[in-house]
């Protein structure tokens, strides 16, 4: 598969997080959190339930307000140009983000066009997760694992530099896990960046780990 984007080969860090603090439901989930990530890095977020993995992912995407701290992308505060920042992100939440009444391929195409893309990477992404023969099935008829694969294919099809993944291994069988690892390796090799909240080890060589403590 061709690299989906030109790798920004910069020695400078791609993503910097400084002194981040977040609340959820009136409770401080984490504070004083700092990170520096270069291109080609996978960061695995670990920690017990309720330790703030999902909140951190949502905070990085600016989906929840930051109580304190700053997120920088290529040295610039991401809050200054939110639309640009959203364009850099491919999101996999704990929900799959798929419409049950749309077909697998339709879901990917529409999601891609909503991001402003042309959908040219959709078919390759479907092939990556062995979904080609399910392409015209309605998503509501799929199993949980097949849906998760479709959602992952959506992430791959986006061609975004930063992947934010919440429990990407959920419901995946062994071949699908291998497919995800291959896709991640390709993404990282082409200069991408990925942050994944996970319980299970991702087993990607060179992956860094950040353990979030229970507050």
């Amino acid at each position, binding site marked *: 598969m061709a690299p989906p984007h030109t790798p920004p080969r910069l020695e400078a860090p791609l993503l910097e997080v400084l002194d981040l603090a977040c609340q959820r439901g009136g409770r401080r989930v984490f504070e004083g959190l700092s990170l520096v990530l270069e291109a080609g890095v996978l960061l695995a977020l670990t920690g017990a339930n309720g330790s703030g993995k999902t909140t951190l992912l949502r905070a990085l995407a600016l989906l929840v307000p930051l109580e304190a701290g700053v997120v920088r992308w290529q040295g610039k505060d991401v809050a200054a140009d939110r639309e640009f920042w959203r364009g850099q992100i491919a999101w996999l939440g704990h929900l799959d983000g*798929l419409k049950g009444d749309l077909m697998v391929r339709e879901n990917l195409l529409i999601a891609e066009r909503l991001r402003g893309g042309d959908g040219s990477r959709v078919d390759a992404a479907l092939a990556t997760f062995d979904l080609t023969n399910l392409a015209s099935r309605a998503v509501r008829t799929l199993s949980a694992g097949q849906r998760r694969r479709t959602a992952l294919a959506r992430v791959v099809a986006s061609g975004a530099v930063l992947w934010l993944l919440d429990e990407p291994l959920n419901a995946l069988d062994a071949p699908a896990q291998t497919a995800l690892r291959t896709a991640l390796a390709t993404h990282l090799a082409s200069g991408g960046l990925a942050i994944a909240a996970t319980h299970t080890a991702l087993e990607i060589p060179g992956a860094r780990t950040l353990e979030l403590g229970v507050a």
Partner: protein
Amino acid sequence: MTGFAVLVLRDLRLVWRRPGDVAVVLAFFVVATTLFPLGIGPETNLLARLAAGVLWCAALFASLLSLDRLFASDYDDGVLDLLLLAPWPLELAALAKCAAHWIVTGLPLAVLAPLLGVAFGLDAKSLLVLAATLAVGTPTLSLIGGLAASLTLGARRGGALLALLALPLCIPTLIFGASAVETSVSGEGFGVHLAILTALALVSLATLPWAMAAALRQGGE
């Protein structure tokens, strides 16, 4: 194709896949209006006088009926996060959802209402006025309802709460919509009413998408 158009077409395609949801709303409109002659009595003069108010109120209820799923379905399957993360303004996404809602409810209601107006003994000109006021007024109802839907996203007792929030805000549209038809029935001019209805639609168009986007961002937190 812009994200706005993609989202409108997506929602229309989803409705196309499940036409039952819209059919139920239109059926409600027909059945609810038919109840009034049965409750009030078949006297033609009385019905013609009540027609404007009855048809407008029924259209208002019908367009609110389908609104509680407007954002809730995207919220439940996680697509709302993708809309929040789309690299274009969320205000436009909110507007696109309301536009799609209007195309599948407001517009059919405006087409259907004159047919029911015949049964209420409205004259030909008033039937046209009825259709025109609904065509101009229902976008406002979709926008106000969309705001209520975004505010109640994830709330307990969402549906009833949505109606409580939206109905008082819909009253100006109801008043001018119904009174336009009424003045037409009594043979007076209705141009001012239509102008005010248009103004209400424009004010809603200019203000409510921002409020909706703010509410959706909160819903995404």
